[in-house]
């Protein structure tokens, strides 16, 4: 017993090391994955950015997660969406669903493009990434509701939302809508592609949900002063 205690007091490194810890020493800096950030010449950078560059020369940097790449096709919004679709850590299946969704959207749009008359061809958007971003933008709510207690009762008070919260709500609504309101035999990618296409032209159930939230916030305008931040 004495041997084991004295063994712990010596300087030691753990035998099993995770590549990326969730809790890093605050000394560590975030990695910069995008190629464009490194190709900018010295003159273009503002003084803060120049300071950052100097810091990176001598400070340690956190390991990048396996979900980010420096390829042209890396999209942080898309990666976040894939992570939200993922269940039980099955990233492969989530990524597969997402690629099938994008392919399905592309197929529908290209079909429409080839069948459209000459004048209408310019208006049809064939890029599924653009449609995905447009749909998410259209689904983001502007104000949210918070439950605040005042005088023993709880009131739904309209509050401003941060960008992250708005993006999260849009994605969450989209995914729950596609999981719950679909026929048993429809595939997830089919339903997702239908909803994304509808949302990109401001139709569909997710847009309706956003409008209902806005209406509730408008109805509870009187309680807005209950917010203290």
């Amino acid at each position, binding site marked *: 017993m004495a041997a084991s205690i004295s063994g712990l007091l010596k300087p030691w490194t753990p035998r099993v090391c995770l590549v990326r810890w969730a809790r890093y020493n605050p000394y560590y800096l975030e990695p910069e994955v995008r190629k*464009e950030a490194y190709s900018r010449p010295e003159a273009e950078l503002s003084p803060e950015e120049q300071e950052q560059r100097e810091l990176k020369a001598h400070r340690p940097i956190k390991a990048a997660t396996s979900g980010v790449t420096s390829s042209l096709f890396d999209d942080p919004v898309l990666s976040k969406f894939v992570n939200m679709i993922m269940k039980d850590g099955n990233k492969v299946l989530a990524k597969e669903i997402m690629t099938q969704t994008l392919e399905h959207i592309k197929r529908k749009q290209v079909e429409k493009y080839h069948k459209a008359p000459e004048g209408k061809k310019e208006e049809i958007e064939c890029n599924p990434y653009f449609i995905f971003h447009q749909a998410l933008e259209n689904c983001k709510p502007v104000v949210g509701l918070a439950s605040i207690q005042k005088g023993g009762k709880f009131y739904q008070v309209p509050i401003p939302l941060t960008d992250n919260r708005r993006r999260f709500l849009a994605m969450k609504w989209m995914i729950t809508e596609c999981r719950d309101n679909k026929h048993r035999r429809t595939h997830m990618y089919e339903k997702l592609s239908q909803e994304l296409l509808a949302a990109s032209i401001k139709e569909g159930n997710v847009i309706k949900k956003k409008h209902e939230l806005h209406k509730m916030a408008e109805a509870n305008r009187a309680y807005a002063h209950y917010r203290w931040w």
Partner: protein
Amino acid sequence: MALHRLSFRLRQTVTHVRSLHTSGCGQQQEATAVESEPEPFSVFRAQENDPACQSEKLIGQYYTLPPAHIKTVFPHGLPPRYQQQIKTFNEACMMVRSPALEVISYLKKTDFSKPAVRYIFYGMKGSGKTMSLCHAVHFCYTQGWLVLHIPDAHLWVKNCKELLPSSYNTSRFDQPLQATEWLRNFRITNEPLLSKIKTKQRYIWTKREFTEEGAALGELVDQGIARVKSSSDVVGAVIKELRLQSGQPESDFRMAVAVDGVNALWGRSTIKKEDKSSVDPEELTLVYNLRKLMKNDWTGGSSESGPGEQHRSRPQVDSRSQPEVPEDQGIRWSHDGRSSHQHPVSFCWCSGPAAPTVLLP
């Protein structure tokens, strides 16, 4: 013309997407888009859409199948992924490949009095065996031959929902569903020729149903479609009639037999009998009759086949089938790759920041 507007539209999408998609302004990407304009698609579209007139100059280019032919020649012949592409792009574009052209040139010079020559397309997975087979079948159809196309022989030896003991020979098994489906498609493909060919024998199906000698082959086929139980035997009868008649001087038709997945006829089947023992392919009526066609003891036509998807690296050709001329699909030429990249770009399939910069082999 429409082509210029297509390239303009492509450029517009590329720049439009770039501003939204990538957060920083990629100067290098802008430069490449402006410098390398997408080449006009006319370079990769073959001018000649008739398989009979296609020459070696068109290898690597895409020719369009007329929409009327797709429904008649290939009611079941095209792979499902390709059918999806037809639906998306609203037209069927097939690449002209050298093995297909070689087989077509042999077919043009066949001597119909000699026994049938058998050709096999083999190669790696994804090298274009099925599509070359379909190209050859299209050629045969445009020349007015009778086409016997089995899209995938593997479908006959696995996942059989209904298996009946054969009424003709008790040791064999019938597959009514697959047989009726094939007869229906056979009728769609060969409608004009069926009324001209007459049967040489009397066939008795049940106590009251029979087909007279000298009746049109179309009637035999209709009998098989109407009476599902005897459809496998009808298939056998049709094959026998065609085999006997195709080489005769008085018959004016040529026969082309095209089988995809021919290894299935000699391999194993996954169908089980009631006592859980496996069924040999020889015990299936459809396969038994088809094997007779694969021998070259008949004249007046030729047969093309391709091994199935199971066999990837090695071309597995059964020694009993004794092919005459193997066609190699293995190596993809460089212009093959270029046009197969340009084709999706010009059909608005590939767009976005990476479309002009994809590496070509």
